C-alpha cells in the first residue's frame, strides 16, 4: 500500500472534517477524495473508516461496488463511450471498436502514453444526440469516426500520428 504524501493526507483530513458529520457521509466523502486526488488510494481507506466509525471492510465494500470510484490512478483524460441501446442504434459499437484499436487498450485500461483511460458508460442522457461519449466532464454528441479521431488526436498530442 503506497503511503500518502503529506499533502494528500492533509487533503483527506480536511475532507473528513467537513463531511464526517453528515448522515450517510461515505459516498460524499469518496466523491470528494476522488475529486481532490484523482483516485481513491487504498491507504485512505483506514482513515475514512476511522473517521466515519465504519470498518475497513465496509468502506472497501462501498468502494468496490460503484464503478465511478477508482482505486488506481487514471490517465490524463478519461474517455467514456456509451454502450447503451440508443447509442447502439446509431452505430456506437463502431466507435467502441475504433477507440479500442486506436488507443491499443481494452475497457478500463490506459493508453501506453498515459493520455487516455477508456471506459464504457451506460447512458449519458444524451440519447437524442446518439452516439455519445464523455471526455472528462464534457459530453460530446453525434460522434462519428472522424469526430472521434479528431478528439483522440487532440488528447494524444503528437504522440500518435493522425
Amino acid at each position, binding site marked *: 500500500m503506497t503511503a500518502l504524501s503529506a499533502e494528500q493526507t492533509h487533503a483527506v483530513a480536511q475532507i473528513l472534517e467537513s463531511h464526517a458529520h453528515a*448522515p*450517510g*457521509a*461515505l*459516498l*460524499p466523502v*469518496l*466523491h470528494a477524495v476522488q475529486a481532490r486526488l484523482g483516485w481513491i488510494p487504498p491507504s485512505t481507506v483506514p482513515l475514512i473508516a476511522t473517521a*466515519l466509525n465504519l470498518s475497513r471492510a*465496509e468502506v472497501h*465494500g*462501498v468502494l468496490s*461496488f*460503484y*464503478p*465511478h*470510484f477508482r482505486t488506481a490512478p487514471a490517465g490524463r483524460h478519461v474517455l467514456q463511450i456509451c454502450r*447503451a*441501446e*440508443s*447509442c*447502439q*442504434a*446509431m452505430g456506437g459499437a463502431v466507435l467502441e471498436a475504433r477507440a479500442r484499436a486506436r488507443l491499443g487498450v481494452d475497457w478500463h485500461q490506459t493508453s501506453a502514453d498515459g493520455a487516455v483511460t477508456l471506459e464504457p*458508460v*451506460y*447512458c*449519458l*442522457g*444524451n*440519447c*437524442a*444526440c*446518439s452516439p*455519445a461519449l*464523455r471526455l472528462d*466532464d*464534457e*459530453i*460530446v*454528441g*453525434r460522434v462519428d469516426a472522424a469526430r472521434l479521431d479528431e478528439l483522440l488526436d487532440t488528447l494524444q498530442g503528437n504522440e500518435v500520428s493522425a
Partner: protein
Amino acid sequence: MSTTVYVPCDTSARSVGADRVAAAITAEAARRGVAITIVRNGSRGMAWLEPLVEVATLAGRVAYGPVRAGDVASLFDSDFLRGGSHPLALGLTDRIPYLARQERLTFARVGITDPLNLDDYRAHGGLAGLRAALGMAPTEIVASVTDSGLRGRGGAAFPAGIKWRTVLDCAAPLKYVVCNADEGDSGTFSDRMLMEGDPYCLIEGMVIAGLAVGATQGYIYLRSEYPHACTTLNLAIVQARAAGLLGANVLGSGRAFELELRLGAGAYICGEETALLESLEGRRGVVRAKPPLPAHAGLFGQPTVVNNVVTLASVPLILARGAAHYRDYGMGRSRGTLAFQLAGNLRRPGLVEKAFGVTLRELLYDYGGGSASGRPLRAVQVGGPLGAYLPEQHFDTPLDYESFAAIGAMVGHGGIVAFDDSVDMAAMARYAMEFCALESCGKCTPCRIGSTRGVEVIDRIVAGTERSRNLALLDELCDTMRHGSLCAMGGMTPEPVLSALTHFPQDFGITPPAGARKLT
C-alpha cells in the same frame, strides 16, 4: 437597445457545440459593435436542431438551427437579430409543428426561461403552486395530487397521492422527501432536461411534497453521469436558499424544508428506490426486500416519499391550476401528460410532451420523422433497457399504462429507442442479459446468476447448439428471473429478451413457424 439571443446550456446542445456558438455570437457582436444579451436557456427539446439559437423579436422568438460556430458571421450578415432570413431560419419557434402540437405542462418553462433566474421563474408562473400549497392543509395538498391522477413517472406508475398519503399518515419525528434523479435507462433524458432547464420547478415540487407529508429534509439523488445537471442544481439550491424558498422559514411561512444534492457513482441499480436509499445512507446499492415500504420505513428507517424528477416537477402545476386541469389530459387511468423521449435511430429525436393516448406510430413518424438512416424502422424499445422490443404490428398501440401492459410491454419512463432494419435482435437480447449481469446488485440469485447463464444460453441458441433444448431452458430461466427476483432488474430483464425472441426469431437462427411461437 440590446437584443436577447438564446443559446441553450442543455447537455445535448452543448454536446454538439452550443458553447462554441455562444462564444462566436458574443465575439461577432462585439466585433460589429452590436448590443446583445445572451441567455443560456434550457433546450426546447428539438434535439436534431441543436444548437438551436433563438432571437427575441417583436413578433416573438425566431429560431435558427442547427447552428455551428462557422455559421455565426453569416447569421449576422442576414440580420438574424431582427429575424432575417437565412438557410438555417426556422421561423417563429412556437410555430414549429414539432413544438406547436405538444401539450407542454411539466415542461412549459423548459427552453423558455433562464434556468437559474428566479425572477424569470416567477414571471412564468413559478412558485404559484407553492404559494397555493402554503395556504392548504397537508391532507388537502395530498388530496389534490391524488385527484390529479398523477402516477410515478419514473416507470412504476404508482399513484403519487397514495404514496404521499401513506407517509402523511405515519407518525414520526423525522420524514424525508427523496428525489430519484438516477435516470439510468437508455433512451431517457427528460429528468436531465428538466433539471438543467427548470431546476426551481423540481425544488418547488419537493418543497410542496415536504409540506404535504410533514417532511423537513429532502435529498436529490443524482447520477454522476450528469455533470451539467449537478452544477445547475447546486447553483439553484444555493439561490433558492438565499431567496427563502428553502430553509427554516419557507417563503416566510414558518415551515421548514432543507434540500441537499447527493451524487450517485455509476451504479444503474441505484435507480431502484430501495437501492437508492441504501446508497444515500452510505452503503452498497443493494436492494432491500419489501415490506417495509419506503413510505413506512425508508431513508434512515424513517417514512420517506421517493419520487422521480418529472413526478415531483409536475406537482407545482397541479397545485397552481388545480387537479382537474391536469386530470383533463390523458386517457383511461393514465391522466395528464408524459414527456416522451424519442431516441435512437430517428430523424427528429427529442422530447415530446403529450397527453397519454398518443400512438407509437405518431411519435415515431409524425414527430420522429422515421429513421435517421432512411432504412425502415424494425424494432422499438419502449420504457428503457427492461422494456419490451416491439415490431411494427404494435406501433398503433396508444401510449397509456394499461394499453401497453395489455400487449406485454410498458410505458415506463416514456423513453422510446428506435432501431432500423440493420439491427440484430439476438445481439440486443444478449445485451439485455449482459447488462443485467453487469448491473445486478447481487442480492438475489435469479438476477445475479440467471443473467450470466442467460448470456450463455442465448449464445448457444444463436450458435445452433441443441437449439430446442436451449430455447426451453431460456424459457425456464426467464420464468425464474421474472418470478424469483427481488426487484425489476432481474424481474424484467426477460422482457426485452423474450420479446426479441418472440417477434424476431429469425435473428436467433430460428425459422418462424406458421403459427406464432408459444412464448409471449
